């Protein structure tokens, strides 16, 4: 017996406690099952790519803080690497090691948010969020020690980092390295085998490796689908070639595996930071080339701006969300001709419809949480 039913369009967002920012998802429901999922993006579009064409290369570094505002270090890093590739600048060793350490600390902090918010989407009333933010606070204190800011860090420069770390930084990192592994154990204890989280996330939103690769998915989403691909090992940059760490891989490609992969990555990040602390050489933190270190503000086309040779370069890193790449085209002037961000959140969102159709509304929320988007990156 068929019942006359009509599909029902529900709008999740743009103002919604769970869309991780201003992101709109239009779901067509048949009862509780999702029949169609339509993403509407652009609510946070700030035309960064166009604005960057008016500013010098160094003035564009704060933009990269604000695209992925949860992982500013990695944003900075990808951009300055692209410009260095374009200019052919050699970065000194100490700067490379500092960059690696900061990027890994940033990865830990970003995964704190990702996992906390995932548990929040599952309904755990902010308790995991509060606990994980406590650890993120410690890392943000470190960042404040290093560069004076907590969120929009602006630490990397073209040719190195902006300043060397103060002497109290390394002892603080050592202290943290004693505490944080126990915290990760605590989170695993609380969240990993929690029956409800397992029930909410096992089998939900699964992506096969073929689908993931076909959609250019990268980062923990790709690794959760079983593909052992990490830009840090596949295409080593900074000091990653010299440290020893493992890639965390899942087996089912579902939401639970993404969560588990992020937890494991947090441990690996701590491992890398430990090696950085041990093996960091002394030396300059900035490459010595004319006009590189002092950039007057408000004087975009002064004699101290960097003018890269004409050409194009693409540099990519492994940000906590996936492969973050910057494609810079230069025409010899102090401002870039084209500044394009290959943002992992935007690309990782492509299979959202594929993952959500057939599930329920609650599943859609959890899947969106597992993609771990930052809308600043999605919309730029």
């Amino acid at each position, binding site marked *: 017996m068929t019942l006359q039913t009509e599909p029902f369009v529900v709008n999740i967002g743009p103002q919604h406690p769970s869309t991780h920012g201003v992101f709109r998802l239009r779901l067509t429901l048949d009862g509780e099952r999702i029949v169609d999922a339509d993403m509407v993006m652009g609510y946070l579009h700030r035309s960064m790519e166009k604005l960057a064409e008016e500013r010098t290369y160094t003035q564009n570094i704060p933009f990269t803080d604000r695209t992925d505002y949860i992982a500013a270090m990695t944003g900075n890093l990808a951009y300055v690497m692209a410009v260095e590739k374009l200019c052919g600048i050699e970065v000194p060793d100490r700067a490379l090691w500092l960059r690696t350490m900061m990027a890994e600390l940033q990865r830990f902090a970003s995964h704190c948010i990702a996992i906390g918010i995932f548990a929040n989407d599952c*309904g755990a009333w902010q308790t995991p969020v509060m606990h994980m933010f406590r650890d993120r606070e410690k890392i943000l204190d470190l960042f404040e020690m290093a560069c004076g800011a907590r969120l929009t860090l602006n630490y990397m420069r073209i040719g190195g980092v902006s300043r060397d770390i103060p002497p109290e930084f390394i002892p603080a990192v050592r202290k943290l390295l004693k505490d944080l592994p126990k915290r990760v154990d605590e989170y695993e204890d609380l969240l990993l085998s929690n029956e409800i989280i*397992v029930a909410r996330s096992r089998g939900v939103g699964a992506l096969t490796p073929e689908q993931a690769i076909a959609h250019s998915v990268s980062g923990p989403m790709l690794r959760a689908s079983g593909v052992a691909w990490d830009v840090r090992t596949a295409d080593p940059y900074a000091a990653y070639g010299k440290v020893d760490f493992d890639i965390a891989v899942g*087996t*089912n*490609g579902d939401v639970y595996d993404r969560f588990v992969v992020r937890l494991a990555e947090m441990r690996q990040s701590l491992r890398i930071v430990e090696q950085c602390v041990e093996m960091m050489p002394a030396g300059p933190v900035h490459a010595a080339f004319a006009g590189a270190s002092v950039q007057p503000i408000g004087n975009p086309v002064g004699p101290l701006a960097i003018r890269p040779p004409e050409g194009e370069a693409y540099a990519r890193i492994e940000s906590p969300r996936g492969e973050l790449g910057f494609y810079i085209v230069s025409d010899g002037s102090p401002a870039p001709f084209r500044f394009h961000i290959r943002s992992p959140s935007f690309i990782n969102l492509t299979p959202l419809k594929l993952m959500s159709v057939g599930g329920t*509304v609650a599943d859609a929320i959890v899947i969106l949480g597992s993609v771990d988007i930052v809308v600043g990156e999605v919309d730029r």
Partner: protein
Amino acid sequence: MTEWYDFRDIGNAVGALLDQIRDWGAPDWVPYVAATLIGIVGILLWAVLSVLAFIWIERRVVGLMQNRIGPNRVGPQGLLQPVADAIKLLLKEAITTTNADRYMFWLGPILVFIPTIVVFAPIPFGEEMVLADLNVGVLFLIAIASINTLAVFIAGWSSNNKYALLGAMRTIAMLISYEIIQVLALLGVVLFVGSMRLGDIIGWQLDHDVWLIVLQPVAVLCYIIAGAVEMNRSPMDIAEAESEIVAGYHTEYGGIKFGFFYQAEYLAGFAITAVVVTLYLGGYTLFGLEQWVPGWLIFLGKLYGFFFTYIWFRGTLPRLRIDQLMAFAWKFLLPISILNVLLVGSEVLLWKEAGLESQLAIPLFAVINGAFAVAVVVGWATALGHSAPRHTAHRAILTQEVGAIFYGEAAPRP
């Protein structure tokens, strides 16, 4: 002692007052009505004050669980926070959306609130402190709780809002599933005691010097879970799942109408906890201590102490999906409740027929029921496949091989 100032039982004071009224020559129905009114006013006052207190307690306790301080700005230690909340809700503009059904919209909060107060009528707060010691007390509790279903639907429907409707539908499905489990859980108690009257149940627990929780572990577990669902509270607050459908059936309500819903949630929590305390934890008795300590103090202590576990659940556990919740009710809790009733029935029959001594029977039954609880929960869960790899936790695989694909392999156990 039955002096009026004996506050171990406030019924004494009320009784003295009523005698005084009779002495003044009032007709017969005046003391009766006066007693009822005093009871109603007393329950209302207590309910409202408890809710105010618990708003503060819950937020502080959940804050402590989340490693932060709760509200601590308004008044000393934040104690005036509930007052501030109440004033804010009272002063807000009462918006009725344009296409909402005006009468139903206005009726919704009231209908949700009424059962949560009425359900306190047969509950004994102390030895003489019952508003209406009904002969069918247990059934009355369930019946009044079942009105909640319709009330929630009216609230959701009248808002003319897709989210509210979704929330209302989910709620009704949940509530009717868990009503059956509630009834079956409470049935075990009634079988042991042989009466549905709450005063008798407490008397039985006092006489046999045992709390029924010891004799009915399965039923208590089922009732605690079913109770959490009936009060729409985390971990089953699907109806108002904040992170999914904003606020479910009370999305469109603001101001004091929302205040009613808020209050009804706490009062429903108190009601369920009061039922658990009365039926399973001995009510106002504490193995004879009630001769010195006022019974109502013991009752309130147990009530608030047990409510703390519900606050604990809320602070810790994530939320289930609606279809998982209903599968849990129908496939897991219902069979074990039915098995429990079967077991209890046969035990009671054995007790009466064989004429066993209470001293022997009760420990025996406690041990049997405890073993049964463990066996049936573990056994049925395994039979339903909860230990299958599909449901178990695991860690990520750590590798250094770039480009390898591990899809579909069994992951290592945690």
